[in-house]
């Protein structure tokens, strides 16, 4: 891969995370499943569980359809106070590459703001992801959202 190609890919990956977090922060959850492959794996867990090899996910999806169901539940079934996220992403790193599949790590931080205005540092942690080239764009084949903290403030509604 030439220098230019490498650079272009780098920016593509950065754009993937950029689009991903703008989608969540703008509450455009209906678009969220589209960032994943159909057979994707998505899990939010804590570093404590992750390092202990415990499989539990606070959100645990083994298909894009399960992500869609998560969204429809948030829209149609679950009750939670109006709130918004703001993601900051940093230090995206390619860990491993195998053909069209890349393993990635990135740091993130989520600030949650409630309708009355109280802002809290809601989550910090690492994305441990696998992306795959599909239809000319990168999609998440696996996304492990590994939270540094084992504690969740009040509830976890919107995905991370």
């Amino acid at each position, binding site marked *: 891969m030439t220098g230019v190609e490498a650079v272009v890919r780098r920016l593509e990956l950065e754009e993937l995370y950029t689009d991903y977090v703008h989608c969540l922060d703008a509450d455009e959850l209906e678009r969220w499943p589209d960032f994943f492959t159909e057979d994707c794996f998505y899990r939010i867990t804590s570093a404590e569980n992750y390092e202990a090899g415990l499989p539990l*996910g606070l959100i645990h999806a083994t298909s894009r359809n399960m992500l869609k169901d*998560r969204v429809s539940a948030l829209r149609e079934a679950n009750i939670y106070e109006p709130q918004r996220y703001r993601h900051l992403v940093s230090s995206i790193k390619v860990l491993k590459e195998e053909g069209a599949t890349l393993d990635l790590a990135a740091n993130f931080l989520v600030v949650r703001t409630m309708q009355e205005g109280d802002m809290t540092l809601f989550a910090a942690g690492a994305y441990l992801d696998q992306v795959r080239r599909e239809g000319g764009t990168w999609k998440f084949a696996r996304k492990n959202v590994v939270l540094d903290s*084992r504690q969740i403030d009040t509830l976890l509604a919107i995905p991370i």
Partner: protein
Amino acid sequence: MQQEIAQPILNWPSEGNARVPYRMFSDPEVYRAELARIFLGPTWQYLALAGELPQPGDYLTTFLGETPVIVTRGQDGEIHAMVNRCAHRGNLVCLKRRGHADNLTCVYHAWRYDLEGNLDSVAFRRGIAGKGGMPASFNLEEHGLKKLRVDTFGDLVFGTLSPEAPPLASYIGNLIGSRIHRVLHGKPKILGTTSQILHNNWKLYFENVRDTYHATLLHAFFTTFRISRLTSEGGVDIAENGAHHASYTRNKVDRVDQATSDQLYAGIPSLRENFRLADPSFLTMAEEFGDDTTTQILSLFPNFVLQQIQNSIALRLVLPKGPDKTELQWTYIGFEEDAPEMTDLRLAQANLVGPAGYVSMEDGAVGNFIQRAIHGSEEECSVLEMGGFGHVSEANRTTEASVRGFWHAYRPLMGL
């Protein structure tokens, strides 16, 4: 303590357990009294699963109310528990949440305790070259860690600091005990843990857990997918003294036909016609318990919950962190005997519960809604009349009987 708290809330409303003054959820005096009278009082509180401490020397830390506790597997193979406070100057003896050690050595001055909390040695007890050291009168025996009474129910380990608490088995009783055994039918295997910080008084969460009335009204998921409906066969078992409860839903055959049920839910927001799932497969329950109970929520006074929702099993511990702050700790389990498919199903069904759970998310918020709503209404009361005024077992769940039962057990301990 008595007069201290008797004063602010002297006369409980004449309606008895059908009324609760909102002050009970916000008054710091009430909270302080609870720590002393309930959490350090004659109640058994969940400490751990026996399987978390397989080897002598294994330990973990937890809390009785706000008091830190160490739980160990002793050299004798037994489980022991003590207050996590050094007898010297009060330092935390164990700093890690879990670990393994041959003995418990305080980092501050290296006083050493055995795994049962007995003081083994005091650094430089004899001083140096005849100077310094502890006085001759100092007696190791008198300076051990404060010990808890420990008792187990199946794999569940409980502890208490009170000599008055009855034996654990009789504390729990057969009615509720048999419902614990029903769920814990194998050797528990932990699938993962999590914790929720709730910005409300601990009792608001515990009331919620025991509230058979709210589930299918607050949680649309239950109703829409018929995981549970008030119109399904079901009921609530309540220990005689009101302290413990188990609510249950039986197989999905409605007691009334579906049309009637839908009609009964007509106009109730929790029935969401327009809510469909693309992949509802994970909601298919696997045969496991040898009965037709699809959901069972069980609580032991004052702060333990055992949940079975289809094949999702979790232990919940409710830890008070202040008058308006609570930590809710979740331990999701399966069993050593589980086939891989069963583990996968439990993991999929774990989406139902916990901080992001389809049928539990709301419970993390509703207590805080109440906490915020009652500002300035400390002298007014909540109304607990659904199902009448008593707290006896019922083959029906349109009742707040088990919530009243909680207060029935709570009030004498608090001198109310």
